[in-house]
């Protein structure tokens, strides 16, 4: 990486402040984009209706109106609830989401932290959100909430394994856990001697990509894996007793996590901020990198939401069977095959 010379030297606290603000934007901007583009508009078009049209041109300000509505609502805590745990739960979920964004690089010099453990750190902090969900379900003092939280936990534990194992293939191919290293391995790699487009791991690790996307779908507890919030059985599961601001936080958490998992998938399998044909150490990527990454995020998120709006809900036993009997064995086979091919070639 070339050393970037800045016009001004920034103190550590100034850098940290800038990082915090950029981090907030990097979490909220893709989340808002996904909600408007896919949840409001694409779903409407797929169902032969227009969706929001009144607030702003083509309803583009609808999101702000919704946020304003949630902020005005009363923050209700059930009488029998465990108040402290009930109120802390959405924060635990949000912390997990905001920590996830740290490892994603936006350009050769654009990153929050350059850590050796990279993707491993991301997968570790993504598992914290389960505790927030369990806290929410238990503290609500409602049977629907508790059942929803237990379903969510069973599902998240089951699908965390294929999620981690699917990434292993990429790590073996790249030879590093560091996210920047994984991007560089794709930018500089070649497929059987042909290096024209680099080596985006979606080609060599297509099985890993498919397993990763299915597991992400389940981690987000959205259809077809939405047993934890199945509205016909459990009202809205662990979200049932939440209202106003705290419901909004869970909502933001869900879609921000969708955006960040899309960013992880884009970085791991589609080459992250890199576009084929250019020099990956070029300073140009510090400018266009984030935009390239956002484009790839929207591409991956399109797939995620397409599945969401298309398939009906799984039954609980089908959901567990898919994870333990199909995805985990497949990803183990993928790891073995990748390891053997890595040694042979």
């Amino acid at each position, binding site marked *: 990486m070339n050393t970037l010379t800045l016009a001004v030297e920034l103190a550590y606290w100034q850098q940290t402040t800038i990082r915090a603000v950029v981090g907030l934007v990097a979490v909220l901007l893709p989340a808002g984009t996904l909600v408007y583009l896919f949840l409001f508009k694409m779903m409407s078009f797929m169902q032969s209706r227009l969706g929001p049209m009144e607030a702003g041109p083509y309803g583009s300000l609808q999101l702000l109106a919704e946020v304003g509505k949630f902020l005005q609502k009363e923050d209700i805590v059930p009488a029998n609830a*465990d108040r402290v745990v009930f109120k802390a739960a959405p924060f635990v979920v949000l912390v997990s989401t905001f920590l996830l964004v740290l490892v994603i690089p936006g350009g050769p010099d654009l990153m929050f932290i350059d850590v*050796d453990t990279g993707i491993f750190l991301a997968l*570790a902090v993504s598992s914290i959100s389960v505790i927030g969900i369990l806290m929410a379900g238990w503290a609500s003092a409602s049977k629907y909430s508790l059942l929803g939280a237990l379903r969510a936990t069973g599902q998240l534990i089951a699908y965390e394994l294929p999620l981690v194992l699917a990434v292993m293939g990429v790590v073996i191919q790249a030879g590093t856990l560091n996210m920047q290293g994984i991007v560089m391995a794709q930018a500089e790699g070649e497929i059987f001697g042909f290096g024209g487009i680099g080596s985006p791991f979606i080609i060599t690790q297509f099985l890993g990509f498919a397993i990763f996307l299915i597991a992400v779908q389940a981690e987000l507890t959205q259809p077809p894996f939405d047993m934890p919030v199945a509205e016909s059985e459990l009202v809205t599961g662990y979200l049932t007793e939440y209202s106003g601001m705290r419901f909004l936080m869970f909502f933001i958490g869900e879609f921000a996590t969708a955006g960040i998992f899309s960013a992880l998938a884009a970085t791991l399998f589609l080459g992250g901020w890199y576009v084929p044909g250019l020099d990956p150490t070029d300073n140009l990527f510090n400018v266009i990198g984030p935009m390239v990454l956002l484009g790839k995020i929207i591409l991956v998120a399109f797939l995620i939401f397409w599945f969401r709006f298309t398939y009906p809900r799984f039954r609980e036993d089908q959901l567990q069977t898919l994870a333990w009997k199909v995805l985990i064995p497949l990803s183990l086979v993928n790891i073995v095959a990748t390891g053997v091919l890595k040694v042979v070639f």
Partner: protein
Amino acid sequence: MIAMAALQGFDSLMSGDTVVAQNIAFGILAVVMIVAALRMVTTGNVVHAALYLVIVLAGVAGIFILLGAEFVGVTQVLVYIGAIVVLFLFGIMLTRGALGEDEEADTEKRRMAVLVGVLVLVVTGGAVLDSFGDAAVNRAAPSLTAEIGDTIFSQYIVPFEAVSVLLLAALIGAIVVARKD
């Protein structure tokens, strides 16, 4: 073990040649961990105890990261917070996750627990002091994940394989115990 770590922390804080920010961060983590650990064993609610345990384990991960053991810190989060405590909570809530104070939590087993706790503290503390003594931690050079991987799969391959087989045996044993039919 926490008390030992705290003592060592204050010791190096006074020696003057260490990074101040690291020591301040360590002090905050240590206080939070001690308070959470005490609350964990004194609280009357099982779920609260598990949540306090999360804070203690997160503090352990923080201390590992402060010492430059990044991989171990992240593993701590993934394994202990993300898996073990979640399974604790899952089990508690499936069986008896009552809200409010739980009278049964406060039993005569308390004396035994104190005894076991003190024994564990003495044994682990003694072992750590015996094997490391005054050896200083190299804070300047964080340990790399690749080096840890190389060491595990070359120098420590036999213990590693033994642990794998042991875990597999435990797994099969758990299934056999759970499925009596």
